[in-house]
């Protein structure tokens, strides 16, 4: 089987972002960028399916400008067979991502399509479900185990209050939970090798997809901060303060 895995380039999860003084947007200039953590889980799982002899080919795809080559190189260094960049300078919202990915799916015909459950910059959590809808295929979101049995994929989903197990007909779209696996570290020689590999580039405009924004960002701002608290020196003082200042008796 063939697996297509979508990887997004985002501000590294360790970095705190700030808004521009004019409130027009987030200032990400010069910040460290990385592959979206959930997408790393998706790449890792694809590679494990290949190592088990279940998958034949793993193709990584990223949508965005040429800088996105770095996350594709990271996917190649982890072990992906091929990488595709759908190039555009446009700001892509989840519906546009889903439409562009659908066009790539139609070219590549994968049996399994893996995405992260959410991009940690926009925190939308939509693209996978939207892609499944556009492809009119089954979906498995927030998956923490993946097993292929005949022409179905069996997944465990992490849901509020527990887990759920589904069997989904292939081709299927899955979105990954962090618990799916622990992504491998990329070794330097592999990274060097990945530098030499070809990245196939497709202009988004050549895919015949209208990917215009469906909402406008009017402004961004820093969240309200909590009023600064106080330090207590002992458990007894804590209980006293909670009782005196908040009327809470524990």
């Amino acid at each position: 089987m063939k697996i297509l895995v979508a990887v997004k380039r985002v501000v590294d999860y360790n970095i705190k972002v700030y808004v521009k003084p004019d409130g027009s947007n987030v200032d990400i200039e010069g910040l460290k960028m990385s592959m979206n953590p959930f997408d790393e889980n998706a790449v890792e799982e694809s590679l494990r399916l290949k190592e088990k002899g279940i998958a034949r080919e793993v193709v990584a795809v990223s949508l965005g400008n040429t800088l996105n080559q770095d996350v594709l190189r990271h996917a190649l260094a982890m072990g992906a067979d091929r990488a595709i960049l759908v190039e555009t300078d446009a700001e892509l919202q989840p519906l546009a991502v889903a439409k562009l990915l659908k066009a790539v799916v139609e070219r590549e015909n994968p049996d399994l399509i893996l995405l992260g459950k959410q991009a940690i910059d926009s925190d939308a959590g939509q693209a996978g479900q939207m892609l499944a809808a556009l492809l009119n295929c089954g979906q498995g979101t927030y998956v923490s185990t993946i097993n292929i049995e005949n022409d179905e994929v069996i997944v465990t989903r992490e849901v509020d209050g527990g887990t759920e197990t589904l069997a989904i007909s292939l081709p299927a779209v899955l979105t990954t939970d962090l618990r799916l696996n622990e992504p491998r570290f990329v070794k330097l020689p592999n990274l060097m090798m990945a530098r030499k590999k070809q990245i196939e580039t497709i202009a988004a405009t050549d895919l015949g997809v209208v990917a215009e924004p469906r909402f406008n960002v009017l402004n961004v701002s820093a969240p309200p901060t909590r009023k600064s608290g106080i330090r207590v020196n002992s458990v007894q003082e804590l209980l006293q303060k909670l009782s005196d200042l908040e009327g809470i008796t524990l």
Partner: protein
Amino acid sequence: MNKLLKVLVLAEHDGAQLNTSVYQSVSAAQTWGAPVDLLIIGKATNAVAKQASSLAGLQRVLRVDAAHLEHLLAEDAANIIVRIANEYQAILAANSSFSRNILPRVAAMLDVAMITDVLQINGSNTYTRSIYAGNVISTVQSLDVTQILTVHASNFAITKQGADAEIVELEAPAISSKSRWLSQQQSQSHRPALSSAKVVVSGGRSLGSAEKFEQLLSPLANRLGAALGATRAAVDAGYAPNDIQVGQTGVVVAPDLYIAIGVSGAIQHTYGMKDSKIVVAINHDPNASIFQVADYGLVADLFEAVPELIASITPAH
């Protein structure tokens, strides 16, 4: 936005009862000042529909009942919603793994955007939500004719009861058959549900083992009638089950009292608890970032402070 149509709320329930977040999503839906319908999908949903019909401000309770809808799949839920969507200006649900699984699929089928986890509804098509794990607040204006969103339930008031809305039965479309439900594992807990608990006791990696996590935090939670929460590090280390992870990628809570024990306060964690009314943090590192969101910070070794805390609390009855 010219004509004010109606608003549809998708209800989450467990077959016996409505999820409490439904009460909040219904009041969010009333922001538009348009008639609100509540959609209940499932099997044998009589009692749930009856309960729903008492919510104030509902025009109708729509019931789609069929055997194959007992364990609802996103494909079937989306087909049901899309069938009736053209009557509605807005379709929403409380933000949860249930709604986030279904509504993006609906949005794509209708070729409209979805707005996830709305903190505030400002006018007919403008919304405030957070991005970057709560580090940035963004105000967006939708350009679509149909607004699809999930709302941050704890930010909205709880709808009153005592009304008597009409219950309308709708036929279920044919089963989609793209996936099959096999089983579920519900975590059994005698404690209140994490997402709606009044008090939450959360522990981090520093508890050191599943035994210690249980040994120290359980008695505290029991005495306070609290739900237990955990950091992702604690969950990853196997000290606590995944479904009690609080944070950006876990559950978002807003209790009256949140007690963070041995929690460093990573932004991904604080995203899930910073709307709590009162935050108490116990950490032995005076520079831990959890103290920046804590109303009461105690710099102490948790292995000493927690037993002392337990001993000082009057046991719950």
